[in-house]
Structures are given as C-alpha cells and as structure tokens.
C-alpha cells in the first residue's frame, strides 16, 4: 500500500528472503478442542470453503475487506494477498524454525510438531503435505 502512494519501494519481500514464508495459523486451546471437536470441524469446513472462494473469486473476496479493515477500497483491491493453504509442508515449518534457532532467537528443542493438529480438517485435506497427524500417531 505504501508503494501505491510512492512513499516506499520494496527492497526485498518476505518471499525473496525466505520462499513461502509461513505467516500465521488459527489456534484453539487444548481444552476447547477437547470439549468442542465438532464445532471446531465446522469452523474449519467454513474456512476451507473461504480459501477456495478467495482462490477462485479473488476480486469478489477483496470487496469484503474495507468493511473489516477500514482500508480504502481502491487499496484493498490491489494489496497483495497471502496464498492460503490449510496445511503447510512440515519441511517449510522446520526451515523457518531452524532459522530462528540459527540466529539465536529460540531454543532448538521446541517441539513445534506437537503444537499443530490437523485432525479437525476435512478428511480429504489430511493427506496433503506432511500432516503432523500421521507424525503424532
């Protein structure tokens, strides 16, 4: 958005620096997941449909942005969106973790695999990527 105003130039994007840099995930507490597995599945069913809608109807999806972000519509229509994938490859996750370890920002022993649970996703998605579901079992 800054670029569109001429205020800035991009020196290097996240993707230039670390390809497919994973930004964030949606999380629940363990207690909530234990008590509400079906509700969680329903949320994720809706999310997966949203991902597909964004992929196939990006322009229409962008029109929802001003209402929630308060960003001007013309900027919402050109701002770069993330690519959404319900499951990220475990090797990408571990690569990012390793960079954080190498630069001394986190400890090596953090068991990131145990912080991810794909078991609430629609069945057909669980086979994508390197699901930690299989890893944990």
């Amino acid at each position, binding site marked *: 958005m800054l670029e569109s105003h001429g*205020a800035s130039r991009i020196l290097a994007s996240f993707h230039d620096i670390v390809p497919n840099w994973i930004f964030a995930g949606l999380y629940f507490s363990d207690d909530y997941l234990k008590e509400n597995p079906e509700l969680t599945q329903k949320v994720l069913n809706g999310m997966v449909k*949203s991902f597909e809608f964004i992929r196939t109807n990006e322009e229409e999806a962008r029109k929802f942005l001003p209402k929630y972000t308060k960003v001007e519509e013309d900027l919402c229509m050109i701002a770069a969106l993330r690519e959404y994938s319900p499951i990220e490859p475990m090797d990408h996750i571990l690569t990012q973790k390793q960079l954080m370890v190498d630069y001394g920002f986190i400890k090596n022993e953090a068991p990131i695999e145990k912080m991810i649970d794909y078991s609430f996703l629609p069945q057909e998605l669980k086979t994508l990527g390197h699901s930690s579901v299989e890893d944990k079992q």
Partner: protein
Amino acid sequence: MFCRKTRKVIALLVATLFISVPTVVLATESSTELPTVKIVYWRSIDDLPLYVGVEKGYFKEAGVNVELEYIKGEPNVLAAVLRGDVSAGVISLASLIKLAEKKVPVKVVIWMGHAHEKTKCGIHVGGQTKYKTLQDVKGMRLATSGSINSKTMLTHALAKGGYTIKDIHPLWGGDPDNPMQYEAALRSGGVDAFIV
C-alpha cells in the same frame, strides 16, 4: 356437570397445554439457533478468509455462527483464548514456537497463509532513499516491531546481503498502527525503512 374424573382429565390437558407450548417453542429455537464460536481478528487484510466465511455464509452453512472479535496484540489474544473468553485466535509461527518452548496448551489447526512471488510484505525503504539492494544497506535506519518473526527475517535478509544486524541501525518497537503512520515516518526521513 362433569364428574370428578372428567374434571381431572380436563385439568391435566390444560396443564399439559400450558406447559408443553413453551417447551415446543424452546425446542424449535434451539434447533434453529447455531452455536457461536468467537474468533479474534486483527482488522488485517490477512484475515480475509474469516471475513469471507462470515459474509458468504460458509460458517453458517457448516453449522456454526462465527463472531469476529477485535483484540489487539498476540499476548492479549492468547490470554483471552486460554481464559475461554474467545474460542480462537491467529498466531505467528514464531510465536507458536515460543509457546512450544513453554508447553502452552494450544494447537494450530489450520494455517492462515504464506508468502509467494507477488507478496509485497517485506523490507520497504523510503521512495527517495539511496538503498537499492540488500547489498547496500549499511547504515540503514530500519524500524520494526522487534518480534521474532521480524528479527529472523531481517537477520536473514542482512546475511543475504553480506551484513549483520550491527551494520544497520534497527529501531525496535517501530510498528505503527496504520499505513499512514508508516508513510509519514518515511516521508519525514526519520527512518529509512520498515518491515511491513
């Protein structure tokens, strides 16, 4: 005149009618009302799947009413999730790794996006500055939040250009709330670059 037995039957029917009507209404209401899940959002473009799910009715189709609630800052969101004030939130991979170190009882159940060739998030330099590539950033004044994500990204970018964090002037905590504040800072010359 009704006999005693008939009066009892009528009384029972009337009582049943008065008691059963509201019960039916409640049963009808509970079958049409969807359970609510509160999810924290950050008024960010990156939360688009949540907005689409609400606006297109995908959550309701799936059988759940999703309410989006704004809470600023990952620690505040985490506290709300753990207290049960809200059901879910969004967390960076770096913060998730930190939570793993502390064995905090949460799980990411779906990812919320990754960078790609058209990604514009990254290191932005002021339009009029001299900085052109990662190989000529020595002395650059760069403002960033100081999160692990930002520090990792910055350190790795500098390494690609042959530098370390000591070769630039990082301004930790430089994380304005909106694009206009970034723009003002860049145009004023107070900083040369941001991670946005």
